[in-house]
């Protein structure tokens, strides 16, 4: 085994021993880091769920295309063909006869419909575009409005825009929160490592005198910071998971009251690992800052 690997393995083991040597301090630090990462992580998952909720809500982000009354079967076929080419979307064709039947079945409408001399309803298409960005929806709406025999195109763009603005605001708030709590994590690691450097100043002095490089001295602290941050990240993922489990029941009941079947999506393996990696990077950064400043004082 080469010296480089031996040094890194020894540094990792030393970092782990330091974590293990003071279990209460380690636990408290992990709780602080875990909570600091939980809030933005929970916000991220909540926004993600909200985006899904917005996508799944019936009618929202759908475009309704109404043909003119004199449109023929051939015109309908033409629109179908254009939809196939122009929009990466799913759609449903609603013939005017079906629309009339549905109207007749509505309470109190049967007599009114019967009194009509002819079917006043047009053929229609309900379009679910793949790209639900407000700008993309608006472009598609304008394009469809220009097609032949299209009388009216309806998009609840105001709702879409409001929802999108809300999501963007949420995302911005989330970034600010993440920045704030990330700085908190760096500060916690900074202070923990500073105290460790102070406690081990004698060992550092001796090690330097007998030929230790800066890397040899710094490495265990870096591993400590990264390890602490990564464990804090895993704790945060566990807290988010637990919170979503608690909320899953009430949210499901609420969705059922609105006729939906929405369920909260917990963080996946990728997101959990991402959170641990983020914690490790921030912990390493705190260790790097702390060791640099603390060792300069010992020089």
């Amino acid at each position: 085994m080469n010296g480089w690997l031996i040094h890194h393995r020894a540094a990792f083991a030393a970092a782990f021993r330091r974590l293990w040597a003071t279990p209460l301090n380690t636990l408290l630090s992990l709780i602080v880091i875990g909570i600091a990462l939980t809030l933005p992580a929970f916000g991220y998952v909540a926004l993600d769920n909200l985006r899904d909720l917005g996508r799944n809500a019936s009618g929202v982000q759908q475009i309704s295309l109404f043909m003119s009354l004199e449109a023929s079967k051939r015109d309908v076929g033409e629109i179908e063909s254009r939809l196939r080419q122009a929009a990466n979307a799913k759609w449903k064709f609603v013939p005017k006869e079906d629309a009339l039947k549905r109207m007749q079945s509505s309470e109190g409408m049967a007599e009114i419909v019967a009194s009509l001399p002819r079917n006043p309803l047009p053929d229609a298409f309900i379009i679910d575009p793949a790209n639900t960005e407000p700008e993309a929806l608006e472009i598609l709406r304008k394009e469809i409005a220009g097609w032949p025999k299209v009388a009216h195109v309806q998009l609840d763009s105001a709702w879409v825009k409001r929802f999108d603005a809300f999501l963007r605001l949420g995302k911005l708030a989330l970034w600010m929160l993440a920045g704030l709590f990330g700085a908190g994590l760096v500060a916690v690691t900074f202070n923990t490592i500073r105290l460790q450097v102070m406690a081990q100043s004698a060992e550092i002095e001796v090690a330097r005198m007998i030929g230790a490089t800066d890397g040899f001295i710094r490495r265990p602290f870096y591993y400590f910071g990264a390890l602490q941050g990564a464990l804090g990240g895993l704790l945060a993922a566990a807290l988010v998971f637990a919170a979503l489990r608690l909320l899953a029941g009430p949210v499901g009941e609420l969705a059922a009251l609105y006729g939906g079947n929405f369920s909260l999506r917990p963080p996946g393996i990728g997101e959990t690992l991402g959170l641990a990696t983020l914690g490790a990077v921030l912990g390493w950064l705190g260790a790097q800052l702390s060791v640099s400043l603390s060792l300069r004082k010992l020089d």
Partner: protein
Amino acid sequence: MIEASNLTKRYPGGLEAVKDASFLIEAGQMVLITGHSGAGKTTLVKLISTIERPTSGSLVVNGQNLSALGRSAIPHVRRHFGMVFQDQKLLFDRNALNNVLLPLEIAGLPRREAIRRAQAALDKVGLLAREKANPIALSGGEQQRLAIARAVVNRPTILIADEPTGNLDTESGTAILDIFADFHRVGVTVVVATHDQSWIERYHPNVLRLAQGRVVE
């Protein structure tokens, strides 16, 4: 080989601890640096072991000019020296074996090989039976022997000591002298700063006498 030419160390505030010192220590020699308190012995030892940097002059050790060394090269040069400090600088949160293991950890030796060599070094100074003991539980003489074991475990070409018997009784001091003499006999260059004249009577080493920072003999 250690060769100094017009070596000077001036501390901030103007104190010149070593002035214009020139000397040559051949490989394998045993040299005592003597002089009264404040003569510059400790500073000279620190200069040779790269703990201090010279203000002017040159200091060449094993063909390497220490005065011109970059900061990053210093740790690697220090690994060729075995250092024994007056206050031992032992680590009290490690047992005796782990104190001796430190230089080998720094050198990146595999753990099993490092333990074997550390135990051999402890055996050499008569402390193998106390390898699990914390340094605080050792006597002054044992602590100094432990410091020597740590200094020699890396098989240095030069063993440097600063007042290694300063805090010891005569019997313990003599035991330490004998250990240094043993290393000298197997070809290690031994440089010891001391005011203890019994070294001269017992081993007839080469003497570098300092007075007010200057080499006078």
